[in-house]
């Protein structure tokens, strides 16, 4: 460790001789002000955070908000798992169960997974591109507050109705809210309105954020930062944002139709007046499937930053990575009806959606091979971010394989809406996406806070979470194959699902313990963590040239870039990239 510190210092010396602006040159006036813990100061700090348009602060707000939502969604799923731990349990009533799984799904997709990556991207994209801020800072703040109010509105539904204990008037129509269940006649009261309005609000936030990222990447880059020198994370955020534009907008339109039905007496999804329930499914999954790629793209981006740095090799096949991501995005726009094989499409329709779904496997395979080739012959450092990335590679592969199984229409007819499907998409969303979120936390926490996350707690978090994950989701496939449908609040003893479900529940609690350790680590390391310095991982992208945490103005002077790995060039002037 001491040796590495010395190496970093030495590199720091060689860096200071270059033209690259170095952190900490200019005294930061704001930091030098003495801050007493008076009430006025607290109000001032609060005011500062609420009114901020700084991309770093908004990024942190996004991340903190998503973490709070992660806890909320996590508590909901633990209650669900308790209820399912054995046959005929009576821990929560059926109506509450419906509300909880709807809230769990909606929360995790819209208010955890989406904003957490927007948070990462907010913080990192301008730093990686070597610029002062994002293209439209005020739009950025607007987007955050729309997202935040969306979540607030959704959780406001817990008040009223049966009261907090009965989950209030929380939406209970499932996260895909199939019609005509959502129509006035079948969903009385305001539970469905909370769902639709919350998602419209957060949808505006997501679209605003996507406009910002696309514009930033295309219009604001430091000198020499050509499109093909951008870090892959930025590329993948572009792809993710394009998908937000093309996928979240249809959802917003469909929600507007739903509200027209509910409030103005329209008939879009009103089957009694000739409306179609199927068209809602189409509209929802036109959003719903690309949404998965909206979430996985930034996860790919984090993997493409972390794996090279901890393999001590440049990413293998950079242009292929970009091309593969773009083609995944394109293909993902034409696969949505594989969620709907059981509604009775024509054979041609089934064949088209089965094939287009399988085609996704090709560019995805290219990406996995590229990551493996990056590892190949590298000097791998098994730090915590790398551990999460390696687990991601393995789990994402399995998630992809069960995805191809489900793409086969006849197989899908058997397992549609079963726990096999639930296990499959949790393998993607937890096993791939959440794992890369954690990798991102361990990798960039030093940049954001200036301190390292504790290594021992991190490894404990990793191993507990891996074990919990596999206990939960490997086992969850089996009750699915045995015929257990999703979204049921209990089951009979003679089904033989009891033991399997108990194991799944135990796994869920192991994951919960791991996440508690993670949150503890975040808090403890903020005060007691090892001081990180500007570049603790000996990385290559521009964000590591700034101080940790970066100054308000990011860079002392506009950086100039000569390759895809600007810091490598600085550290190895004799052997530039």
């Amino acid at each position, binding site marked *: 460790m001491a040796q590495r510190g010395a190496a970093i210092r030495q590199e720091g010396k060689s860096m200071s001789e270059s033209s690259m602006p170095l952190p900490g040159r200019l005294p930061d006036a704001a930091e030098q002000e003495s801050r007493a813990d008076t009430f006025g100061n607290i109000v001032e700090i609060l005011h500062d955070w609420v009114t901020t348009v700084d991309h770093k602060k908004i990024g942190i707000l996004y991340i903190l908000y998503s973490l709070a939502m992660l806890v909320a969604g996590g508590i909901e799923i633990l209650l669900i798992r308790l209820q399912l731990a054995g046959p005929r349990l009576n821990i929560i009533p059926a109506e509450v169960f419906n509300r909880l799984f709807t809230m769990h799904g909606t929360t995790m997709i819209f208010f955890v997974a989406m904003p957490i990556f927007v948070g990462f991207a907010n913080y990192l994209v301008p730093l990686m591109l070597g610029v002062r801020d994002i*293209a439209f800072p005020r739009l950025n703040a607007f987007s955050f507050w729309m997202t935040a109010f969306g979540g607030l509105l959704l959780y406001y539904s817990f008040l009223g109705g049966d009261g907090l204990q009965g989950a209030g008037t929380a939406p209970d129509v499932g996260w895909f809210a199939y019609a005509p269940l959502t129509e006035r006649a079948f969903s009385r009261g305001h539970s469905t309105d909370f769902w639709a309005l919350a998602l419209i609000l957060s949808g505006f936030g997501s679209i605003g954020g996507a406009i910002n990222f696309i514009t930033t990447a295309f219009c604001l880059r430091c000198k020499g930062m050509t499109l093909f020198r951008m870090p892959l994370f930025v590329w993948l955020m572009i792809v993710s944002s394009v998908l937000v*534009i093309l996928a979240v907008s249809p959802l917003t339109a469909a929600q507007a139709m739903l509200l027209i039905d509910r409030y103005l007496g329209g*008939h879009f999804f009103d089957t009694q007046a000739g*409306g179609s329930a199927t068209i809602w499914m189409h509209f929802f999954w036109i959003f719903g499937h690309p949404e998965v790629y909206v979430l996985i793209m930034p996860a790919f981006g984090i993997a493409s930053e972390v794996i090279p740095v901890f393999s001590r090799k440049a990413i293998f096949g950079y242009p292929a990575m970009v091309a593969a991501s773009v083609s995944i995005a394109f293909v993902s726009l034409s696969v949505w009806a594989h969620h709907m094989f059981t509604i009775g499409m024509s054979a041609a329709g089934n064949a088209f959606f089965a094939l287009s779904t399988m085609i996704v496997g090709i560019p995805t395979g290219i990406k996995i091979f590229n990551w493996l080739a990056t590892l190949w012959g590298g000097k791998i450092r098994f730090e915590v971010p790398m551990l999460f990335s390696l687990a991601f590679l393995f789990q994402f592969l399995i998630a992809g394989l069960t995805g191809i199984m489900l793409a086969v229409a006849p197989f899908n007819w058997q397992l549609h809406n079963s726990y096999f499907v639930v296990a499959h998409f949790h393998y993607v969303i937890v096993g791939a996406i959440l794992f890369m979120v954690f990798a991102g936390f361990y990798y960039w926490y030093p940049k954001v806070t200036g301190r390292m996350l504790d290594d021992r707690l991190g490894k404990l978090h990793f191993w507990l979470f891996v074990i919990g994950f596999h206990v939960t989701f490997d086992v969850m496939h089996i009750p699915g194959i045995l015929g257990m449908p999703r979204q049921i609040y209990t089951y009979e003893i003679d089904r033989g699902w009891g033991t399997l479900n108990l194991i799944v529940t135990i796994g869920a609690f192991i994951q919960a313990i791991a996440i508690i350790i993670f949150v503890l680590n975040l808090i403890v390391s903020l005060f007691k963590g090892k001081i990180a310095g500007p570049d603790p991982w000996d990385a290559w992208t521009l964000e590591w040239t700034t101080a940790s945490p970066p100054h308000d103005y990011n860079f002392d002077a506009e950086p100039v870039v000569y390759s895809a790995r600007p810091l490598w060039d600085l550290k190895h002037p004799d052997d*530039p990239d």
Partner: protein
Amino acid sequence: MSTLPISVPVTDTHLPYKGRVAMFTLIAAESAIFSIFVVAYIYYIGQSLSGPTPREVLDLPIFNTIFLLSSSLTIMLAERALVRRAMGNFNLFWGLTILLGAIFLIGTGREWYKLITVDHLTISTNLFGTTYYSLVGLHALHVIVGLILLTAVLVFSLMKALRPEDTKRIEVLALYWHFVDCVWIVVFTVVYVIGR
């Protein structure tokens, strides 16, 4: 690679104007929203269980269409005048654009008034009513937003507060107006030609 000197000239690319890129992105998002409403409209053509039907109540809004589409022309002339800093001409053509847009809105309003009072077609009457008022209404909403923004620019211009550097911003707004006009071509075709 190792022989490449670090002083290799920086490839300085000319970056596009951010307002333009953002507006094109917004237009993509809006197009996706309109597509969903258009798809719903086409899907539900002839699916209403009760009358009135489009053939019975809808008339081709030829003049309305001509007014709105010609506003694309006037806004282009206004832009050209602005580039030349011929502010008199700019105000004239910009004001004409607002006028044409307003006439279009009034036309839509009269059409709706007739549908509601004479034909008794509201948004809740049947599927045709639901899809018609949503699609045409969504477009009209965009015209209203456009008119508010156009009027704001006209006020600034009359107050002589338009600086030369605002030209780029006004071009971005014009882009939005062209989009609103293009959407009308789609709405016109779907609602009044195919759907009737």
